Protein backbone atom coordinates (compact mmCIF):
# COMPACT_ATOMS: atom_id res chain seq x y z
CA UNK A 1 0.00 0.00 0.00
CA UNK A 2 2.68 2.43 1.02
CA UNK A 3 4.77 1.49 -2.00
CA UNK A 4 1.93 2.20 -4.35
CA UNK A 5 1.44 5.51 -2.64
CA UNK A 6 5.12 6.32 -2.88
CA UNK A 7 5.57 5.43 -6.51
CA UNK A 8 2.41 7.34 -7.28
CA UNK A 9 3.92 10.43 -5.75
CA UNK A 10 7.14 9.85 -7.64
CA UNK A 11 5.48 9.44 -11.00
CA UNK A 12 3.49 12.59 -10.49
CA UNK A 13 6.54 14.54 -9.44
CA UNK A 14 8.46 13.19 -12.44
CA UNK A 15 5.86 14.37 -14.91
CA UNK A 16 5.55 17.80 -13.37
CA UNK A 17 9.31 18.13 -13.38
CA UNK A 18 9.52 17.07 -17.00
CA UNK A 19 7.32 19.96 -18.00
CA UNK A 20 9.13 22.27 -15.67
CA UNK A 21 12.49 21.16 -17.02
CA UNK A 22 11.45 21.70 -20.63
CA UNK A 23 10.03 25.10 -19.84
CA UNK A 24 12.90 26.12 -17.62
CA UNK A 25 15.55 26.55 -20.21
CA UNK A 26 13.82 27.43 -23.41
CA UNK A 27 13.04 31.10 -23.83
CA UNK A 28 9.46 31.78 -24.77
CA UNK A 29 9.06 30.51 -28.31
CA UNK A 30 8.59 33.40 -30.66
CA UNK A 31 5.92 32.36 -33.12
CA UNK A 32 3.82 33.87 -35.88
CA UNK A 33 4.73 36.39 -38.50
CA UNK A 34 5.82 39.06 -36.03
CA UNK A 35 8.04 36.47 -34.36
CA UNK A 36 9.66 35.55 -37.67
CA UNK A 37 10.35 39.18 -38.50
CA UNK A 38 11.88 39.69 -35.10
CA UNK A 39 14.11 36.63 -35.52
CA UNK A 40 15.33 37.74 -38.95
CA UNK A 41 16.00 41.24 -37.63
CA UNK A 42 18.02 39.85 -34.76
CA UNK A 43 20.22 37.86 -37.14
CA UNK A 44 20.53 40.74 -39.60
CA UNK A 45 21.32 43.49 -37.08
CA UNK A 46 25.12 43.03 -37.05
CA UNK A 47 25.23 42.82 -40.86
CA UNK A 48 23.14 45.98 -41.19
CA UNK A 49 25.36 47.83 -38.70
CA UNK A 50 28.54 46.97 -40.58
CA UNK A 51 26.97 47.71 -43.99
CA UNK A 52 25.82 51.17 -42.86
CA UNK A 53 29.29 51.93 -41.49
CA UNK A 54 31.16 50.94 -44.64
CA UNK A 55 28.67 52.59 -47.02
CA UNK A 56 28.93 55.84 -45.03
CA UNK A 57 32.70 55.57 -45.26
CA UNK A 58 32.68 54.82 -48.98
CA UNK A 59 30.38 57.71 -49.92
CA UNK A 60 31.58 60.05 -47.14
CA UNK A 61 35.07 60.07 -48.64
CA UNK A 62 33.57 60.93 -52.03
CA UNK A 63 31.11 63.56 -50.78
CA UNK A 64 33.60 65.38 -48.54
CA UNK A 65 36.37 64.95 -51.11
CA UNK A 66 38.90 63.55 -48.63
CA UNK A 67 42.42 63.04 -49.98
CA UNK A 68 43.29 59.44 -50.74
CA UNK A 69 46.42 59.40 -48.60
CA UNK A 70 44.42 60.65 -45.62
CA UNK A 71 41.53 58.23 -45.90
CA UNK A 72 41.05 55.96 -48.87
CA UNK A 73 37.66 54.47 -49.74
CA UNK A 74 36.95 50.89 -48.64
CA UNK A 75 36.65 49.87 -52.29
CA UNK A 76 40.17 51.21 -52.98
CA UNK A 77 41.52 49.38 -49.94
CA UNK A 78 39.90 46.13 -51.03
CA UNK A 79 41.27 46.45 -54.56
CA UNK A 80 44.74 47.12 -53.10
CA UNK A 81 44.42 43.90 -51.11
CA UNK A 82 43.17 42.08 -54.16
CA UNK A 83 45.92 43.47 -56.35
CA UNK A 84 48.71 42.36 -54.03
CA UNK A 85 47.23 39.20 -52.60
CA UNK A 86 50.40 37.21 -52.16
CA UNK A 87 52.20 40.10 -50.43
CA UNK A 88 49.42 40.64 -47.88
CA UNK A 89 49.05 36.91 -47.42
CA UNK A 90 52.74 36.56 -46.56
CA UNK A 91 52.61 39.53 -44.17
CA UNK A 92 49.49 38.18 -42.50
CA UNK A 93 51.03 34.75 -42.05
CA UNK A 94 54.06 36.20 -40.27
CA UNK A 95 51.97 38.31 -37.90
CA UNK A 96 49.48 35.51 -37.21
CA UNK A 97 52.26 33.11 -36.38
CA UNK A 98 53.87 35.62 -33.98
CA UNK A 99 50.55 36.46 -32.36
CA UNK A 100 49.64 32.80 -32.01
CA UNK A 101 53.01 31.79 -30.56
CA UNK A 102 52.93 34.63 -28.01
CA UNK A 103 49.31 33.84 -27.12
CA UNK A 104 50.08 30.14 -26.63
CA UNK A 105 53.23 30.71 -24.58
CA UNK A 106 51.37 33.22 -22.38
CA UNK A 107 48.54 30.74 -21.88
CA UNK A 108 50.77 27.86 -20.84
CA UNK A 109 52.97 29.98 -18.56
CA UNK A 110 49.95 31.65 -16.96
CA UNK A 111 48.22 28.32 -16.33
CA UNK A 112 51.27 26.85 -14.60
CA UNK A 113 51.66 29.88 -12.33
CA UNK A 114 47.89 30.18 -11.78
CA UNK A 115 47.83 26.57 -10.57
CA UNK A 116 50.35 27.42 -7.85
CA UNK A 117 48.47 30.60 -7.00
CA UNK A 118 45.13 28.79 -6.74
CA UNK A 119 46.66 26.35 -4.26
CA UNK A 120 48.47 28.83 -2.05
CA UNK A 121 47.21 32.19 -0.85
CA UNK A 122 50.81 33.13 -0.06
CA UNK A 123 52.01 32.59 -3.62
CA UNK A 124 48.93 34.39 -4.89
CA UNK A 125 49.64 37.43 -2.73
CA UNK A 126 53.30 37.37 -3.67
CA UNK A 127 52.72 37.18 -7.42
CA UNK A 128 49.74 39.52 -7.78
CA UNK A 129 51.63 42.86 -7.40
CA UNK A 130 54.02 41.72 -10.10
CA UNK A 131 51.16 40.84 -12.42
CA UNK A 132 49.58 44.24 -11.79
CA UNK A 133 52.91 45.95 -12.57
CA UNK A 134 53.19 44.09 -15.87
CA UNK A 135 49.66 45.08 -16.72
CA UNK A 136 49.78 48.77 -15.81
CA UNK A 137 53.16 49.54 -17.35
CA UNK A 138 52.57 50.41 -21.02
CA UNK A 139 54.09 47.59 -23.05
CA UNK A 140 55.41 50.12 -25.56
CA UNK A 141 57.62 51.61 -22.82
CA UNK A 142 59.63 48.48 -22.24
CA UNK A 143 59.52 47.01 -25.73
CA UNK A 144 62.85 48.69 -26.66
CA UNK A 145 64.36 47.16 -23.51
CA UNK A 146 63.14 43.72 -24.54
CA UNK A 147 64.61 44.20 -28.01
CA UNK A 148 67.93 45.24 -26.46
CA UNK A 149 67.84 42.10 -24.36
CA UNK A 150 66.55 39.56 -26.88
CA UNK A 151 68.00 41.13 -30.02
CA UNK A 152 66.29 42.04 -33.27
CA UNK A 153 63.83 39.55 -34.71
CA UNK A 154 61.32 36.89 -33.87
CA UNK A 155 62.33 36.22 -30.26
CA UNK A 156 61.72 39.78 -29.09
CA UNK A 157 58.37 39.89 -30.84
CA UNK A 158 57.27 36.69 -29.12
CA UNK A 159 58.35 37.96 -25.71
CA UNK A 160 56.42 41.21 -26.19
CA UNK A 161 53.32 39.35 -27.38
CA UNK A 162 53.46 36.80 -24.58
CA UNK A 163 53.89 39.55 -21.97
CA UNK A 164 50.77 41.44 -23.01
CA UNK A 165 48.67 38.26 -23.11
CA UNK A 166 50.03 36.84 -19.87
CA UNK A 167 48.20 38.85 -17.22
CA UNK A 168 44.59 38.31 -18.40
CA UNK A 169 45.22 34.55 -18.57
CA UNK A 170 46.84 34.57 -15.14
CA UNK A 171 44.18 36.58 -13.32
CA UNK A 172 41.26 34.80 -14.96
CA UNK A 173 42.93 31.43 -14.50
CA UNK A 174 43.27 31.95 -10.74
CA UNK A 175 39.74 33.32 -10.42
CA UNK A 176 38.35 30.41 -12.43
CA UNK A 177 40.20 27.73 -10.49
CA UNK A 178 38.95 29.24 -7.26
CA UNK A 179 35.38 29.44 -8.53
CA UNK A 180 34.57 25.76 -7.84
CA UNK A 181 31.45 25.28 -5.72
CA UNK A 182 32.66 24.83 -2.12
CA UNK A 183 30.09 22.03 -1.69
CA UNK A 184 31.73 20.11 -4.55
CA UNK A 185 35.14 20.47 -2.93
CA UNK A 186 33.71 19.14 0.34
CA UNK A 187 32.04 16.25 -1.50
CA UNK A 188 35.37 15.38 -3.09
CA UNK A 189 36.95 15.50 0.36
CA UNK A 190 34.24 13.22 1.76
CA UNK A 191 35.56 10.42 -0.48
CA UNK A 192 39.17 11.46 0.16
CA UNK A 193 39.80 12.49 -3.45
CA UNK A 194 43.39 13.53 -4.15
CA UNK A 195 44.40 17.14 -4.88
CA UNK A 196 45.24 15.99 -8.38
CA UNK A 197 41.71 14.67 -8.94
CA UNK A 198 40.18 17.85 -7.53
CA UNK A 199 42.39 19.90 -9.84
CA UNK A 200 41.75 18.02 -13.08
CA UNK A 201 38.13 17.05 -12.50
CA UNK A 202 36.82 20.16 -10.72
CA UNK A 203 39.16 23.16 -10.75
CA UNK A 204 40.30 23.07 -14.36
CA UNK A 205 36.85 22.63 -15.93
CA UNK A 206 35.48 25.31 -13.58
CA UNK A 207 38.13 27.70 -14.87
CA UNK A 208 37.06 27.28 -18.51
CA UNK A 209 34.46 30.09 -18.62
CA UNK A 210 36.90 32.67 -17.25
CA UNK A 211 39.67 31.35 -19.49
CA UNK A 212 37.49 31.89 -22.54
CA UNK A 213 36.88 35.48 -21.41
CA UNK A 214 40.63 35.90 -21.05
CA UNK A 215 41.19 34.44 -24.51
CA UNK A 216 38.83 36.98 -26.09
CA UNK A 217 40.82 39.81 -24.53
CA UNK A 218 44.12 38.13 -25.40
CA UNK A 219 43.28 37.84 -29.12
CA UNK A 220 43.33 41.62 -29.49
CA UNK A 221 46.33 41.97 -27.19
CA UNK A 222 48.31 39.34 -29.11
CA UNK A 223 47.82 41.28 -32.35
CA UNK A 224 48.91 44.49 -30.61
CA UNK A 225 51.98 42.69 -29.28
CA UNK A 226 52.91 41.25 -32.67
CA UNK A 227 52.50 44.56 -34.53
CA UNK A 228 54.37 46.46 -31.84
CA UNK A 229 57.13 43.85 -31.78
CA UNK A 230 57.61 44.06 -35.54
CA UNK A 231 57.70 47.81 -35.26
CA UNK A 232 60.55 47.82 -32.74
CA UNK A 233 62.41 44.61 -33.47
CA UNK A 234 63.53 45.44 -36.98
CA UNK A 235 61.31 42.87 -38.56
CA UNK A 236 61.33 42.64 -42.34
CA UNK A 237 57.99 40.94 -42.66
CA UNK A 238 54.53 41.12 -41.14
CA UNK A 239 51.66 43.58 -40.96
CA UNK A 240 53.43 45.73 -38.34
CA UNK A 241 56.38 45.97 -40.71
CA UNK A 242 53.99 46.89 -43.55
CA UNK A 243 52.52 49.68 -41.42
CA UNK A 244 55.97 50.95 -40.45
CA UNK A 245 57.09 51.11 -44.07
CA UNK A 246 53.83 52.77 -45.11
CA UNK A 247 54.19 55.39 -42.40
CA UNK A 248 57.69 56.29 -43.55
CA UNK A 249 56.50 56.75 -47.14
CA UNK A 250 53.42 58.90 -46.95
CA UNK A 251 52.27 57.90 -50.41
CA UNK A 252 51.68 54.32 -49.40
CA UNK A 253 48.49 55.05 -47.45
CA UNK A 254 46.72 52.26 -49.24
CA UNK A 255 49.15 49.65 -47.92
CA UNK A 256 48.68 51.03 -44.42
CA UNK A 257 44.94 50.63 -44.72
CA UNK A 258 45.36 47.24 -46.31
CA UNK A 259 47.32 46.08 -43.27
CA UNK A 260 44.68 47.55 -40.94
CA UNK A 261 41.93 45.68 -42.77
CA UNK A 262 43.82 42.40 -42.63
CA UNK A 263 44.52 42.86 -38.90
CA UNK A 264 40.86 43.61 -38.25
CA UNK A 265 39.87 40.55 -40.25
CA UNK A 266 42.31 38.28 -38.36
CA UNK A 267 41.07 39.59 -35.01
CA UNK A 268 37.43 39.18 -35.97
CA UNK A 269 37.97 35.69 -37.39
CA UNK A 270 39.84 34.55 -34.27
CA UNK A 271 37.13 35.96 -32.03
CA UNK A 272 34.43 34.25 -34.07
CA UNK A 273 36.30 30.95 -33.88
CA UNK A 274 36.60 31.36 -30.10
CA UNK A 275 32.89 32.05 -29.83
CA UNK A 276 32.05 28.87 -31.73
CA UNK A 277 34.42 26.73 -29.65
CA UNK A 278 33.10 28.34 -26.47
CA UNK A 279 29.50 27.65 -27.42
CA UNK A 280 30.31 23.95 -27.81
CA UNK A 281 32.64 23.62 -24.83
CA UNK A 282 30.56 25.67 -22.39
CA UNK A 283 27.05 24.60 -23.38
CA UNK A 284 26.53 23.85 -19.67
CA UNK A 285 27.45 27.32 -18.47
CA UNK A 286 24.98 30.12 -17.76
CA UNK A 287 26.93 32.51 -20.03
CA UNK A 288 25.76 30.51 -23.05
CA UNK A 289 22.06 30.96 -22.32
CA UNK A 290 19.83 33.85 -23.21
Amino acid at each position, binding site marked *: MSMIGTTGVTGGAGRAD*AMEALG*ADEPERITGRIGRVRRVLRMAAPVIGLAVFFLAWQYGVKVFDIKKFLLPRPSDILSTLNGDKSFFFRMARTTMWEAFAGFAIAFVAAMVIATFMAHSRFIERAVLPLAVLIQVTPIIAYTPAIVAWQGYGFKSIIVVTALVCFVPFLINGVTGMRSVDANLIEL*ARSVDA*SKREVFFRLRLPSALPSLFSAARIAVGLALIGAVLGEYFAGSLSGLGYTIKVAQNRRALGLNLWGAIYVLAFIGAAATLLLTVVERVALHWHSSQRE
Partner: protein
Amino acid sequence: MSEASPVATVERDRAELLVSVRNVTKTFRQRGGNVQALQRVDLDIGRGEFVSLLGPSGCGKSTLLRIIGGLHEASSGVVTINGLDPDTARAAKQYGLVPQAPALVPWKTLGQNVRFLTGLHRGAAAHPVMSDAEIDGLLETVGLAGFTKAYPHELSGGMQQRASLVRAFALGAPILLMDEPFAALDEITRADMRYLLLDMWGRTNTTVVFVTHSVTEAVILSDRVIMMAARPGRIASDRQIDLPRPRTPEMEDTAEFHETVRMLRADLREFHR
Protein backbone atom coordinates in the same frame (compact mmCIF):
# COMPACT_ATOMS: atom_id res chain seq x y z
CA MET B 1 1.02 -5.89 0.13
CA SER B 2 4.27 -6.10 1.98
CA GLU B 3 5.82 -8.57 -0.49
CA ALA B 4 5.63 -5.79 -3.10
CA SER B 5 7.53 -3.57 -0.76
CA PRO B 6 11.29 -4.08 -0.45
CA VAL B 7 11.13 -1.73 2.50
CA ALA B 8 10.39 -4.60 4.82
CA THR B 9 12.97 -6.96 3.33
CA VAL B 10 16.13 -5.43 4.76
CA GLU B 11 16.76 -6.80 8.20
CA ARG B 12 18.06 -4.11 10.49
CA ASP B 13 20.19 -5.10 13.40
CA ARG B 14 20.17 -2.02 15.56
CA ALA B 15 22.14 -3.68 18.32
CA GLU B 16 25.37 -3.49 16.31
CA LEU B 17 27.21 -0.27 17.08
CA LEU B 18 28.43 1.62 13.99
CA VAL B 19 29.16 5.17 15.07
CA SER B 20 30.50 6.03 18.48
CA VAL B 21 31.05 9.59 19.62
CA ARG B 22 32.77 9.90 23.00
CA ASN B 23 33.19 13.11 24.95
CA VAL B 24 33.66 15.20 21.81
CA THR B 25 34.34 18.90 22.18
CA LYS B 26 34.88 21.34 19.36
CA THR B 27 36.17 24.85 19.83
CA PHE B 28 36.45 27.31 16.96
CA ARG B 29 38.92 30.11 17.35
CA GLN B 30 37.41 33.40 16.37
CA ARG B 31 38.21 37.04 16.73
CA GLY B 32 37.28 38.02 20.26
CA GLY B 33 37.85 34.57 21.76
CA ASN B 34 36.91 30.95 21.36
CA VAL B 35 33.48 29.68 20.46
CA GLN B 36 32.43 26.38 21.93
CA ALA B 37 30.62 24.70 19.06
CA LEU B 38 30.27 21.36 20.84
CA GLN B 39 30.67 20.46 24.49
CA ARG B 40 31.12 16.90 25.70
CA VAL B 41 28.97 15.15 23.18
CA ASP B 42 28.31 11.42 23.57
CA LEU B 43 26.36 9.56 20.92
CA ASP B 44 26.01 5.96 19.74
CA ILE B 45 24.42 5.07 16.42
CA GLY B 46 23.58 1.48 15.51
CA ARG B 47 23.98 -0.03 12.06
CA GLY B 48 20.98 0.65 9.87
CA GLU B 49 19.56 3.35 12.11
CA PHE B 50 18.03 6.55 10.78
CA VAL B 51 19.07 9.24 13.25
CA SER B 52 18.19 12.92 13.04
CA LEU B 53 20.15 15.72 14.64
CA LEU B 54 17.52 18.35 15.37
CA GLY B 55 18.06 21.86 16.61
CA PRO B 56 18.17 25.56 15.84
CA SER B 57 21.02 27.10 13.86
CA GLY B 58 24.17 27.46 15.92
CA CYS B 59 23.61 24.34 18.01
CA GLY B 60 26.51 22.54 16.33
CA LYS B 61 24.49 19.88 14.52
CA SER B 62 26.29 20.42 11.21
CA THR B 63 29.61 20.52 13.04
CA LEU B 64 28.84 17.20 14.72
CA LEU B 65 27.89 15.72 11.33
CA ARG B 66 31.19 16.87 9.85
CA ILE B 67 33.20 15.54 12.78
CA ILE B 68 31.55 12.15 12.35
CA GLY B 69 32.40 12.35 8.63
CA GLY B 70 36.03 13.30 9.21
CA LEU B 71 35.55 16.65 7.49
CA HIS B 72 36.19 18.59 10.70
CA GLU B 73 38.49 17.51 13.46
CA ALA B 74 37.27 17.33 17.06
CA SER B 75 39.20 19.49 19.53
CA SER B 76 39.05 16.62 21.99
CA GLY B 77 37.23 13.33 22.37
CA VAL B 78 37.09 10.19 20.24
CA VAL B 79 34.94 9.26 17.25
CA THR B 80 35.02 5.77 15.81
CA ILE B 81 33.20 4.39 12.80
CA ASN B 82 33.13 0.62 12.80
CA GLY B 83 36.29 0.76 14.85
CA LEU B 84 38.02 3.19 12.46
CA ASP B 85 38.82 6.82 13.10
CA PRO B 86 36.88 9.21 10.83
CA ASP B 87 39.83 10.04 8.56
CA THR B 88 40.56 6.38 7.90
CA ALA B 89 36.85 5.75 7.32
CA ARG B 90 36.79 8.66 4.87
CA ALA B 91 39.80 7.28 3.02
CA ALA B 92 37.96 3.94 2.81
CA LYS B 93 34.96 5.74 1.27
CA GLN B 94 32.61 4.83 4.10
CA TYR B 95 30.56 8.03 3.81
CA GLY B 96 27.98 9.30 1.36
CA LEU B 97 27.54 13.03 1.84
CA VAL B 98 24.42 14.95 0.84
CA PRO B 99 25.00 18.68 1.24
CA GLN B 100 22.30 21.32 1.62
CA ALA B 101 22.71 22.51 -1.98
CA PRO B 102 22.50 19.78 -4.65
CA ALA B 103 26.07 20.66 -5.78
CA LEU B 104 25.94 18.74 -9.04
CA VAL B 105 28.85 19.13 -11.45
CA PRO B 106 27.43 21.57 -14.02
CA TRP B 107 29.31 20.21 -17.04
CA LYS B 108 28.30 16.61 -16.43
CA THR B 109 25.01 14.97 -17.29
CA LEU B 110 22.76 13.64 -14.57
CA GLY B 111 23.88 10.09 -15.41
CA GLN B 112 27.54 11.11 -15.02
CA ASN B 113 26.79 13.14 -11.90
CA VAL B 114 25.28 10.29 -9.93
CA ARG B 115 28.46 8.28 -10.64
CA PHE B 116 30.84 11.18 -10.04
CA LEU B 117 31.81 10.38 -6.44
CA THR B 118 32.13 6.69 -7.27
CA GLY B 119 34.71 7.65 -9.89
CA LEU B 120 36.82 9.73 -7.51
CA HIS B 121 39.50 8.02 -5.42
CA ARG B 122 38.66 4.86 -7.31
CA GLY B 123 39.65 1.58 -5.80
CA ALA B 124 39.52 2.81 -2.22
CA ALA B 125 36.08 1.53 -1.32
CA ALA B 126 36.13 -1.45 0.99
CA HIS B 127 32.52 -2.15 0.07
CA PRO B 128 30.85 -2.86 -3.27
CA VAL B 129 29.66 0.28 -5.04
CA MET B 130 26.27 0.16 -6.74
CA SER B 131 26.11 -1.48 -10.15
CA ASP B 132 24.84 0.50 -13.12
CA ALA B 133 21.59 -1.48 -12.98
CA GLU B 134 21.11 -0.64 -9.31
CA ILE B 135 21.78 3.03 -9.96
CA ASP B 136 19.27 2.98 -12.82
CA GLY B 137 16.81 1.37 -10.42
CA LEU B 138 17.28 4.20 -7.93
CA LEU B 139 16.89 6.81 -10.68
CA GLU B 140 13.66 5.07 -11.63
CA THR B 141 12.50 5.20 -8.02
CA VAL B 142 13.06 8.93 -7.78
CA GLY B 143 11.51 9.63 -11.20
CA LEU B 144 14.71 10.61 -12.97
CA ALA B 145 15.07 7.62 -15.29
CA GLY B 146 14.29 9.68 -18.40
CA PHE B 147 16.71 12.47 -17.55
CA THR B 148 20.12 10.78 -17.44
CA LYS B 149 21.29 12.76 -20.48
CA ALA B 150 20.10 16.11 -19.07
CA TYR B 151 22.48 18.66 -17.61
CA PRO B 152 21.88 20.09 -14.12
CA HIS B 153 20.75 23.48 -15.45
CA GLU B 154 17.96 21.72 -17.32
CA LEU B 155 16.56 20.23 -14.09
CA SER B 156 14.40 21.74 -11.36
CA GLY B 157 15.74 22.19 -7.84
CA GLY B 158 13.84 19.14 -6.60
CA MET B 159 15.20 16.97 -9.40
CA GLN B 160 18.73 18.15 -8.68
CA GLN B 161 18.39 17.30 -5.01
CA ARG B 162 17.05 13.84 -5.88
CA ALA B 163 20.11 13.32 -8.09
CA SER B 164 22.26 14.39 -5.15
CA LEU B 165 20.59 11.70 -3.02
CA VAL B 166 21.12 9.04 -5.67
CA ARG B 167 24.78 10.09 -5.97
CA ALA B 168 25.27 9.45 -2.25
CA PHE B 169 23.47 6.10 -2.32
CA ALA B 170 25.41 5.06 -5.46
CA LEU B 171 28.63 5.00 -3.45
CA GLY B 172 27.28 1.99 -1.58
CA ALA B 173 28.74 3.53 1.56
CA PRO B 174 27.43 2.23 4.89
CA ILE B 175 26.90 5.72 6.37
CA LEU B 176 25.03 8.57 4.73
CA LEU B 177 25.53 12.05 6.14
CA MET B 178 22.81 14.50 5.17
CA ASP B 179 23.10 18.17 6.01
CA GLU B 180 19.60 19.69 5.74
CA PRO B 181 19.28 18.33 2.20
CA PHE B 182 15.68 19.48 1.77
CA ALA B 183 15.98 22.91 3.41
CA ALA B 184 16.12 24.80 0.12
CA LEU B 185 13.11 23.05 -1.44
CA ASP B 186 9.50 24.21 -1.45
CA GLU B 187 7.19 22.56 1.09
CA ILE B 188 5.35 20.31 -1.40
CA THR B 189 8.54 19.00 -3.02
CA ARG B 190 10.07 18.54 0.41
CA ALA B 191 7.17 16.35 1.56
CA ASP B 192 7.65 14.06 -1.47
CA MET B 193 11.39 13.92 -0.97
CA ARG B 194 11.06 12.60 2.57
CA TYR B 195 9.23 9.47 1.44
CA LEU B 196 11.56 9.02 -1.52
CA LEU B 197 14.48 9.10 0.86
CA LEU B 198 12.81 6.55 3.16
CA ASP B 199 12.12 4.37 0.14
CA MET B 200 15.79 4.44 -0.93
CA TRP B 201 16.99 3.91 2.62
CA GLY B 202 14.64 0.92 2.90
CA ARG B 203 16.21 -0.72 -0.13
CA THR B 204 19.75 -0.40 1.16
CA ASN B 205 21.26 -1.37 4.45
CA THR B 206 22.56 2.09 5.18
CA THR B 207 22.78 4.18 8.30
CA VAL B 208 21.61 7.76 7.96
CA VAL B 209 22.63 10.74 10.06
CA PHE B 210 20.25 13.52 9.05
CA VAL B 211 20.61 17.13 10.13
CA THR B 212 17.40 19.16 10.14
CA HIS B 213 15.69 22.02 11.91
CA SER B 214 12.21 20.71 11.18
CA VAL B 215 10.54 18.76 13.99
CA THR B 216 7.98 17.08 11.73
CA GLU B 217 10.66 16.10 9.23
CA ALA B 218 12.76 14.55 11.98
CA VAL B 219 9.78 12.59 13.34
CA ILE B 220 8.51 11.20 10.05
CA LEU B 221 12.00 10.11 8.94
CA SER B 222 13.79 8.90 12.02
CA ASP B 223 14.20 5.97 14.34
CA ARG B 224 15.76 8.37 16.82
CA VAL B 225 15.76 12.12 17.17
CA ILE B 226 18.72 13.73 18.89
CA MET B 227 17.71 17.19 20.06
CA MET B 228 20.60 19.61 20.32
CA ALA B 229 20.87 22.89 22.21
CA ALA B 230 23.10 25.87 21.57
CA ARG B 231 25.71 27.87 23.49
CA PRO B 232 27.47 25.60 24.03
CA GLY B 233 26.38 23.04 21.42
CA ARG B 234 25.30 19.90 23.24
CA ILE B 235 22.82 17.02 23.15
CA ALA B 236 19.68 17.97 25.02
CA SER B 237 17.53 14.91 24.51
CA ASP B 238 17.59 11.60 22.68
CA ARG B 239 14.18 10.18 21.82
CA GLN B 240 13.17 6.93 20.15
CA ILE B 241 10.44 7.39 17.53
CA ASP B 242 8.13 4.41 17.76
CA LEU B 243 5.97 5.01 14.68
CA PRO B 244 5.80 1.78 12.66
CA ARG B 245 7.72 1.30 9.40
CA PRO B 246 7.26 1.83 6.56
CA ARG B 247 6.21 5.36 7.22
CA THR B 248 3.45 6.83 5.08
CA PRO B 249 2.10 10.33 4.48
CA GLU B 250 -1.14 9.21 6.21
CA MET B 251 0.78 8.71 9.45
CA GLU B 252 1.29 12.46 9.66
CA ASP B 253 -2.38 12.68 10.61
CA THR B 254 -2.29 10.15 13.45
CA ALA B 255 -2.50 11.02 17.13
CA GLU B 256 0.75 9.14 17.74
CA PHE B 257 2.61 11.37 15.29
CA HIS B 258 1.16 14.53 16.79
CA GLU B 259 2.00 13.38 20.29
CA THR B 260 5.64 12.74 19.31
CA VAL B 261 5.89 16.13 17.63
CA ARG B 262 4.34 17.76 20.70
CA MET B 263 6.89 16.09 22.97
CA LEU B 264 9.83 17.26 20.86
CA ARG B 265 8.42 20.77 20.69
CA ALA B 266 8.23 20.75 24.48
CA ASP B 267 11.91 19.71 24.58
CA LEU B 268 12.73 22.55 22.20
CA ARG B 269 10.97 25.07 24.44
CA GLU B 270 12.72 23.75 27.50
CA PHE B 271 16.21 24.02 26.03
CA HIS B 272 15.90 27.17 23.98
CA ARG B 273 14.68 29.81 26.31
